[in-house]
């Protein structure tokens, strides 16, 4: 009888909970993967919901949001900068501009815009101060203080591009991985509150990294995509990917015809 119990226990222990270390790790890993997947699904479900509606609180009017702006190239950059120009720079700061490593023009255009806005606000501030009849000394110190804090508000970054024009598809696998890794490194370092992008391919790895940032829970980054004004009947490839995977919190289109074709997108006119 006792022998039978012992043998039954032995069988039970051997078949159920043999504490071999490799299977323990396997179990832990599968639990971890399940958790990550669950978290990812949760993030996807939450995507598109306004963060303030979820927690029933608004942001203060003076609150600052860390803003990552992805510049495409050519026409995309022009569109994005026309949008950026309309942003409230005191609210959307600091700003990080990201462009493809081989894109020489976009970042300098963004820098020019920053300079222009900086000159504008400092002139306004100076006017305000003189209006209050402050001493010239004070104005000077205020102005330099202003300049200093403005300096830190804009940053310019370059990210590897996943595929250059004319690159072969074979080597582009490697360069895509490199681009993703680099984008992830940048996004995890910056930890933005908002990512604004409008394609083309440059923004794909950045937005995937933004999604991963959400999954890790380090920061809930709101991702905003503005489809190019060139797209009237069909979304761009990047746009279709973002739309299908519901990666974006806000998906803007610039033509009514797209709004009808792709429900869930937002139409508020055109940026140009």
């Amino acid at each position, binding site marked *: 009888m006792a022998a039978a119990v012992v043998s039954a226990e032995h069988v039970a222990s051997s078949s159920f909970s043999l504490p071999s270390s490799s299977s323990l790790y396997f179990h832990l890993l599968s639990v971890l993967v399940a958790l990550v997947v669950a978290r990812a699904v949760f993030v996807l479900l939450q995507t598109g919901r306004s963060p303030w509606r979820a927690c029933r609180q608004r*942001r203060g009017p003076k609150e600052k949001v860390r803003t990552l702006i992805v510049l495409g190239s050519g026409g995309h950059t022009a569109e994005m900068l026309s949008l950026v120009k*309309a942003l409230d720079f005191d609210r959307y700061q600091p700003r990080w501009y990201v462009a493809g490593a081989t894109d020489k023009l976009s970042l300098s255009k963004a820098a020019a815009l920053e300079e222009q806005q900086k000159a504008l606000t400092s002139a306004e501030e100076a006017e305000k101060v003189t209006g209050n009849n402050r001493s010239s000394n004070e104005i000077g110190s205020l102005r330099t203080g202003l300049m200093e804090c403005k300096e830190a508000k804009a940053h310019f970054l370059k990210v590897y591009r996943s595929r250059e024009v004319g690159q072969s598809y074979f080597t582009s696998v490697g360069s895509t991985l490199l681009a993703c890794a680099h984008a992830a490194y940048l996004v995890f370092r910056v930890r933005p509150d908002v990512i*604004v992008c409008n394609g083309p391919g440059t923004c794909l790895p950045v937005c995937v990294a933004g999604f991963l940032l959400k999954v890790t829970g380090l920061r809930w980054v709101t991702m905003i995509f503005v489809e190019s004004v060139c797209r009237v009947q069909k979304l761009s490839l990047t746009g279709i990917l973002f739309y299908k995977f519901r990666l974006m919190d806000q998906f803007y289109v610039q033509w009514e015809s797209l709004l009808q074709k792709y429900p869930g997108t937002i139409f508020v006119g055109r940026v140009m």
Partner: protein
Amino acid sequence: MGRVATTTPLGESPSLSPSEFQLPSKACGNGGNVFVTVGTTSFDALVKAVDTEEFRDILRSRGYNSLTMQIGRGRYIPSCGCGDDSSSEKEGESISYSCKEEEEEEEEEEESNTERNSKKTRKQSEDNNSRFASSSTSSLSGEASTFSVRGFRFRPSLAADMQSAALVISHAGSGSIFEALKYMRPLVVVVNEDLMDNHQKELASELASRKHLFYASCSNLADVMRTVDLSSLVEYPAGDPDRFVKSIGEFLGFPPSL
């Protein structure tokens, strides 16, 4: 001498701000410059299409008196209808070329500021090579219909050229299209049919259906230019990025005021 008189108002016009312009379709009959732009890429087919005597005749008959071409990275250097100056051009260099149909000292001074600036940056030797005067003018045309042709590859900003133009003929890139619409220039967009991924067509045809511009291909550009009624164009209402910013701000939970 009559030439100087007709070009003077053209040289002065760039200083006007866009708001001072009426939609200039009404003004196109009484002279003015036609500006052709291909953007940052190359679009030889368009340059070839406008660089014909036939096309210049059409423009002349519509009352334009000059043509400026921005040819980008194109391999085809326009002949300007006044001789072979392309031999001096080296490919890949950022060059400005210019050729005129008349040989007059005063004309040099009559040119717009932008032209003068680009002249400064140009090397003297190149200047001698690429600029030349042709004596064939008088045989080409009568005094009333002199027609000058200029060109360059790139400029940091085409704003001045756009603003001074009485008509813009552009490739279908969104940057050029919206710049011309911003300055309220009558616009004919030529779609590059050689491009593989031709989504540019979408934008041009949509804007054409809204009567903001005319839409052509290289093959029918001349026909379009012959028959087109520029006064039927409607002003493009500029986009409003503030609405985007407001929508984004609301989503982020900022108070709607502001």
